[in-house]
């Protein structure tokens, strides 16, 4: 028997954090203005200690002004979507659940677009509207996915896919109708993109991220039991209804958060938790932090590729994640069918 220990949890998170750091440094290095790894590390080091006078101004501009904000946004989005995916998989008892596949991302995108048309200047309205869109969509998918009062795995997926395509159509319709307004491009909302800086201070978004991930993490040993069976979990003393409510709200918040700043990036919530499960097992006490870090790594790498492979043109980052995610989805679906 090798149950999870705090030591193992710490070391796995430390290794993943180190990989994330390496990915960040590589991403900072890639771009039109040449800057060496040593210069990046020194700039980061001095910046972290607040010694701005020791940094050359062009390095400051390239690292802290241009590239790091985008990477920080990528980390936020990746961690949000991957944790939301792991949360939805437990909540809906479906290994193929993912904010994008279930249409939750499209619901959040629709909420965000509506808030941009109705109240373009209200602070944080876009985040609130994206959250509301996510909450409403997952509730709709949940009820559409039931058969004879029971949550049915394939009906749920079909309900999600149909909802996603319906909401995407509504988004396209709105974007075409409101083409004169500043609503960002259609590709942004349907595919996801990290090029546009968010209108809100990233620090607030990070605070929400930590609260939402913390809430899901606080239920992780309960989720382990719910995954084995809800009735059994109830009998073993788990307050199943409370846990589901926490995960439902927190995972919707994470999706809303990510979509409000980056549009609907797909498959992160599917890909990352499954890879982490294959690597470290399915204990949610480890899976939640590992997925958050893994999601951050995936988006940082995918966005670096998206802005460099066809430079000077950029691909939407969602195209990169879909290229990797769609085959994994099909693989998982076929393996389940067997």
């Amino acid at each position, binding site marked *: 028997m090798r*149950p999870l220990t705090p030591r193992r949890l710490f070391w796995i998170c430390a290794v993943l954090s180190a990989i994330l750091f390496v990915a960040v440094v590589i991403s900072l290095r890639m771009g039109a203005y040449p800057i060496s790894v040593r210069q990046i590390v020194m700039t980061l080091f001095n910046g972290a200690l607040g010694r701005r006078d020791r940094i050359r101004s062009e390095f400051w501009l390239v690292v802290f002004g241009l590239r790091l904000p985008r990477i920080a946004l990528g980390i936020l989005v990746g961690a949000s979507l991957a944790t939301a995916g792991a949360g939805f998989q437990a909540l809906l008892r*479906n290994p193929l659940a993912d904010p994008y596949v279930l249409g939750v991302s499209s619901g959040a995108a629709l909420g965000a677009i509506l808030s941009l048309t109705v109240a373009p200047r209200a602070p944080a309205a876009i985040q609130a509207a994206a959250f509301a869109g996510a909450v409403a969509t997952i509730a709709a998918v949940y009820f559409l996915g039931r058969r004879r009062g029971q949550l049915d795995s394939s009906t749920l997926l079909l309900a999600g896919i149909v909802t996603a395509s319906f909401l995407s159509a509504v988004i396209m319709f709105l974007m075409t109708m409101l083409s004169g307004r500043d609503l960002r491009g259609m590709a942004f909302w349907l595919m996801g993109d990290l090029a546009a800086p968010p209108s809100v201070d990233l620090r607030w978004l990070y605070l929400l991220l930590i609260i939402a991930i913390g809430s899901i*993490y606080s239920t992780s040993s309960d989720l*382990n*039991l719910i995954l*084995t069976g809800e009735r*059994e979990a*109830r*009998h073993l003393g788990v307050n199943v209804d409370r846990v589901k409510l926490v995960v439902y709200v927190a995972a919707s918040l994470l999706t809303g958060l990510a979509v409000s700043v980056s549009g609907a990036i797909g498959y992160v919530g599917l890909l990352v938790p499954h890879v982490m499960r294959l690597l470290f097992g399915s204990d949610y006490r480890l899976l939640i932090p590992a997925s958050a870090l893994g999601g951050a790594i995936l988006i940082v790498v995918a966005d670096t590729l998206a802005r460099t492979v066809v430079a000077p043109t950029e691909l939407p980052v969602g195209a990169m994640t879909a290229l990797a995610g769609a085959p994994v989805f099909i693989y998982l679906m076929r393996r389940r069918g067997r």
Partner: protein
Amino acid sequence: MSTLAESGAAAAIAPGAAAGPRLKVEQASYAYAATDRSAPEFTLGPVSFEARQHELIAILGPNASGKSTLLRLLAGLHKPLSGRIELEGMEITKIDARLRAQRIALVQQESEMLFPLRVWEYVLQGRYPYGRRLRFETPEDCLLGGNALAQVGVDELRDRWMDQLSGGERQRVILARALAQQPSLLLLDEPTQHLDIGSKVELLRRLRRLATEMRYTVLVVTHELNLAAEFSDRIVLMHKGKCLRVGVPADVYDPALLEEIFEAPLAVEMRPSGRPRVILRDNR
């Protein structure tokens, strides 16, 4: 073997409880409806009986007779509409859910597992009621989990995946998780379903031993009339939500009554051991 598990099970028993019944069901009834306002679709009870430590009680009856509902009432998952159910002098529904899970283990007809688990991971879930939120398993938990596996004779399976086990092995692992809870009351809902005859006999023999040697009180819902007569101390016979009889197998197995409620031509013969055997009557 498994002295810790044994002392744990014994420790859960209140002092002096050995003298009185461990489980006391007094006129307990229950009803459920499709919606809050519609008329009840199913009514159970009132049911009364008692169970002591060392006892194995079988709950028998045809389909839809209320056996599983009764078991869920005993597990505290439903609150009785009227009457009382007490475990060691405490009303079951008033015990906090985690504390209740330290006293009562329920082995249900299993639901689908979402992600593959190793046997030891599954068995350690039985230790959940003893921990605070987010706690990590202690060496004592591992020892008790290992003891539970040894008690049901599947220690060598601990590193296997749950979905690679045979039906009989799986049922024993599920029982091991229940034992890891260190309960005083062990409830099993049709544990013999989907098992071959050898595994059925093996399982009931093991439950009998757990009751006799380890002081558990065991209640089993089953359709196996003959195995129940062979291994149980007493029988609770249910039909259409009513408890028809409670008593030793020889008293409860009245051929006319069994024929009526199971709607089949049945005869009962008494064996030299004093235990009855049900056979299908030749009705040509």
